[in-house]
């Protein structure tokens, strides 16, 4: 049974099946679409609507049409661009380290030895701890006077009170928490690379690095890309971590935090909604770029 031969066996020209297939497809797809419309599309539509108005903070019930004013306010605010920069720095930093460490974890977990199952469970421990608790935990570990890090290093750096230290702590906390997620996805990808390929390569005299870069990496690429795109989109929307660690001070203000501060804490609804929509657009743009340059696979997924 060769995969190649399966392709040839696809029945073509069964036109009568076309409509019943479409109908079945409609049934199977509709629950998802319904949920998406309700829980995702409606709120975004609502947010866009809100962003086109200004709602008075001082006087109840007063609102006025703002058109794109909120957007121009947001886009000309240096704080907004700071948040954009911080968000991208965070994303780049944490995703990079997650990939590296996650890959290492996956490779180690993949090697056969006793206790492998236990190791896999250990690796998922960080992922199992609540994000909010993780943040609290790292905050106490990096406490300037009573924290573990300062007592080990013998310094008194105020980690969360300086930039770029605060960002570094945030990246460490995020990497700790989500490298296991990477590892799990990469491990699943590694598990199905047939062993003979490596054997054959060893016979041909390939070094370990060559085996990794010529065999493992390419075959792992699909799984890696899925993991990358999801992690990137998550990182761009990060909220819990900076909220608990620094409340967005010292160079850790992210887009989501900025939107929250404006929309909820300061009650400036129109502008806050615009910020949320801008966040959405930015994240959307990044995902488009991914699909365009990196994910020809996505098209392949949708192909028959």
């Amino acid at each position, binding site marked *: *049974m060769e*995969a190649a031969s399966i392709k040839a*066996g*696809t029945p073509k020209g069964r036109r009568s099946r076309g409509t019943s297939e479409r109908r*079945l497809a409609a049934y*199977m797809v509709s*629950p*998802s*679409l319904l*949920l*998406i419309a*309700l*829980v*995702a599309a409606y*709120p975004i539509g*609502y947010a866009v609507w809100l962003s086109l108005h200004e709602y008075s903070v001082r006087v109840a019930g007063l609102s006025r049409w703002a058109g794109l004013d909120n957007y121009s306010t947001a886009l000309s605010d240096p704080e907004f661009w700071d948040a954009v920069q911080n968000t991208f720095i965070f994303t780049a930093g944490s995703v990079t380290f997650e990939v590296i*460490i996650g890959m*290492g974890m996956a490779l*180690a977990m993949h090697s*056969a*030895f006793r206790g492998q199952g236990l190791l896999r*469970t250990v690796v*998922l*421990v*960080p992922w199992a*701890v*609540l*994000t*909010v*608790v*993780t943040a609290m*935990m790292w905050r*106490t*570990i990096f406490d300037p006077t*009573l*924290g573990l890090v300062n007592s080990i290093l013998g310094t008194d750096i105020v980690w969360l009170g300086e930039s770029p230290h605060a960002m570094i702590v945030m990246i460490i906390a995020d990497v*700790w928490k989500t490298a296991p997620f990477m590892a799990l*996805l990469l491990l*699943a990808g590694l598990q*199905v690379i047939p062993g003979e390929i490596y054997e054959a390569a060893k016979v041909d005299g390939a070094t370990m690095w060559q085996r990794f870069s010529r065999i493992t990496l390419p*075959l792992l690429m*699909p*799984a890696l890309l*899925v993991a990358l795109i*999801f992690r990137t*989109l998550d990182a*761009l*929307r990060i*909220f*819990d971590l900076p909220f608990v660690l620094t409340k967005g001070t010292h160079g850790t203000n992210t887009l989501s935090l900025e939107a*929250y501060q404006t*929309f909820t804490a300061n009650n400036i609804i129109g502008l806050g909604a615009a910020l949320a*929509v801008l966040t959405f657009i930015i994240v959307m743009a990044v*995902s488009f770029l991914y*699909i365009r340059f990196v994910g020809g696979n996505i*098209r*392949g*997924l*949708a*192909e028959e």
Partner: protein
Amino acid sequence: MATPAVGATEPVTTTAAPKTAKTKKPPGQKPPWWLWFAIAAIVVFCLAPFYWLINVSLKTGPDLSGSAIVPPNPTLDNYQSVFQNDDFIRALLNSAIVSLTTTFLALLVGSFCAYALARLKFPMKFALLALVLSITTFPPIAIATPVFKLWSDIGLFNTLPGLIIPYLTFALPLAIYILVSFFKEIPKDLEEAALVDGATRFQAFYKIVIPLAAPGLATAGILTFISAWNEFLFAVTLTSTPDARTVPAAIAFFTGSTEFEEPLGTISAASIIISIPLILLVLLFQKRIVAGLTAGAVKG
């Protein structure tokens, strides 16, 4: 491999000797020394902060103000007070119900959608896939308030279904993605054969495809379960009483004796308690993944 798939599996059918699809070192060859070092590093990396959490959970009172690595007066008081807290027990139950239901439904709904995407012909597939992916781009902040308003209007506020529905929706992208790639890797001729034998498409779906995609389902299942279990923002926004509150929201209610006190001890104890079922589940599930993978190899 003909189909460039985004997915975790390459066709496991290419090998004649299925057992070796899983890379195993021939018996008798010991793992290299640096592997042990790497493993030790991984264990320390993953467990050290967790140990710190355990450390804090065994401290009470003034000890919490200290930075001792080993609790000077270890006590189970925090755990006791957590278990005596009825609201917390209730929250555990709620979390279990919500997470399990979400996972089950996400796999159900997601696999339907994934199958349609992977196998059936219909227009605008790419648009649908992109739409599903775009859900992961939504900032939760933007979603929470409108959903709160909607739920208040139709009476789903402070109910478990009120949580399950959003969780389910946000679990779909990853679940669908993983499942689509697993489905695509399953050879079509199995279903074709079934269709020839008179089965409907749908029967082919749940009798043939689903069992073969077990590892994908397991992976998607674990990840969905964990995110539903850990979710915080909606849990706090969409519930108001212990009846519907899940554990992350309940922890936000943990208090000391005054409004400013941050009871690190009980929070840590609670976190350990709720991490344990997750860890156990993972321990169970990951055997399933491996079994599923090798099973797939054999069947192919």
